[in-house]
């Protein structure tokens, strides 16, 4: 049975009523969310989406299931917004397992006073990103919190994907001799957000690198189904992913500092504020650990893919010193690249 006509949201500002379960909330949900995401499952306004398990099984062997909440401030920035992030971030957390991302849920926490026009832009970004990533946003939830108890908008997306038989990517799988590849400039997103936030009064043309990575992943899997470890270098950056790999696989990893692609502007931000781009968040970068013999093949398909044109081998996996990540500097010296302690704070000394 098709719904008659969808309700429309006339309000220009979100109030507590939009989260109270009544008509105002229905206006919001039907107009903004259902109206934008518009798909069979969501349109039914049921409490849950439903899929045939047989259809999923036809596409792979395992189900991947992942969640992330997005709380970025500001919610709009150069190259994207919190909506783009919320879709691509979860798509990527599925993708790095080798899964083909299929369905997302969308849990919104809105702050009273949010401009509806901003919300509409963000939701439109989500739809666009979902279309680009080939996923459908099939179920959702909306809450409104009082002014000063939230920060404009928080989004949780939880994703489901399907992993093909034989793919077994894990942070535990790094082997001495493996090579470490990254798919382009690191630190763009973190630097772009610092810039957009404005409180350090920097001004630089720098866009987030936010992009979906499942296409790149599938291309890599075609030439190397036995990829050892892959993770998107989001919060905590490349340094964090590498430390996680080293720890989980009980190996050490050596980076070649002068091989790591960093944009001039990102270096500039780092030099001014005394920060390290290896800890900056990325939203479209992954770190891949490949068996040495497959390095060239993997690198080639990566470079040929739009999401991997800047790919570079940045390091190698070593035996011993389990859990340590080392950086070999241009001078032949070495230093430890530890996990981040505390947060990266701009500093003067």
């Amino acid at each position: 049975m098709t719904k008659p006509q969808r309700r429309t949201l006339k309000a220009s500002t979100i109030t507590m009523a939009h989260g109270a379960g009544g008509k105002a909330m229905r206006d919001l949900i039907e107009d903004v969310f259902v109206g934008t995401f518009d798909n069979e499952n969501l349109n039914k306004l049921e409490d849950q989406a439903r899929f045939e398990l047989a259809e999923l099984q036809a596409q792979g062997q395992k189900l991947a299931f992942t969640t992330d909440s997005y709380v970025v401030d500001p919610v709009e920035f150069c190259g994207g917004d919190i909506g783009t992030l919320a879709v691509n971030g979860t798509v990527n957390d599925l993708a790095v397992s080798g899964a083909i991302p299929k369905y997302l849920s969308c849990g919104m926490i809105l702050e009273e006073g949010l401009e509806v026009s901003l919300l509409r832009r963000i939701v439109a970004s989500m739809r666009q990103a979902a279309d680009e990533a080939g996923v459908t946003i099939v179920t959702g939830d909306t809450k409104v919190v009082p002014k000063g108890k939230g920060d404009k908008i928080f989004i949780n997306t939880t994703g489901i994907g399907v992993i093909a038989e034989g793919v077994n990517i894990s942070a535990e799988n790094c082997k001495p001799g493996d090579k470490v590849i990254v798919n382009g400039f690191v630190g763009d997103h973190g630097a772009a957000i610092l810039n957009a936030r404005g409180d350090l009064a920097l001004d630089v043309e720098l866009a987030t690198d936010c992009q979906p990575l499942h296409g790149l992943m599938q291309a890599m899997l075609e030439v190397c189904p036995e990829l050892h470890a892959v993770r998107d270098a989001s919060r905590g950056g490349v340094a964090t992913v590498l430390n996680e790999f080293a720890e989980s696989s009980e190996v050490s990893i050596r980076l070649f500092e002068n091989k790591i692609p960093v944009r001039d502007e990102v270096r500039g931000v780092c030099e001014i504020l005394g920060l390290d781009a290896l800890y900056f968040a990325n939203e479209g970068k992954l770190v891949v650990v490949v068996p040495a013999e497959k390095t060239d093949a993997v690198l080639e398909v990566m470079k040929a893919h739009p999401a991997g044109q800047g790919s570079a081998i940045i390091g190698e996996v070593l035996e011993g010193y389990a859990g340590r990540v080392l950086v070999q500097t241009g001078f032949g010296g070495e230093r430890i690249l530890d996990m981040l302690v505390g947060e990266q704070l701009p500093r003067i000394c």
Partner: protein
Amino acid sequence: MCLGIPGQIVEIKDADEGVAMVNVSGVKREVNLGCVLPEDGNLDALMGRWTLVHVGFAMSLIDEEEARKTLEILAELGELQEELDAMQNTEVD
């Protein structure tokens, strides 16, 4: 201590308040010129100059000639070392 980074003055934003924009590797930031004011007060003379930036202040105008000299000394050291190496090799040979 005292993180400082060279940046180029690319705009005088407020001559009265002595505020300029510097460019550090593509990143712009407002700096205060209070420590590097020219004697004649004409801030335009600072346009294009490189300055050492610390906590949002231009703390020093970079002496490009001295920078060149420092690098020259190092270059000479390199040549000297090469000669020395050559000599050493000769001796050993």
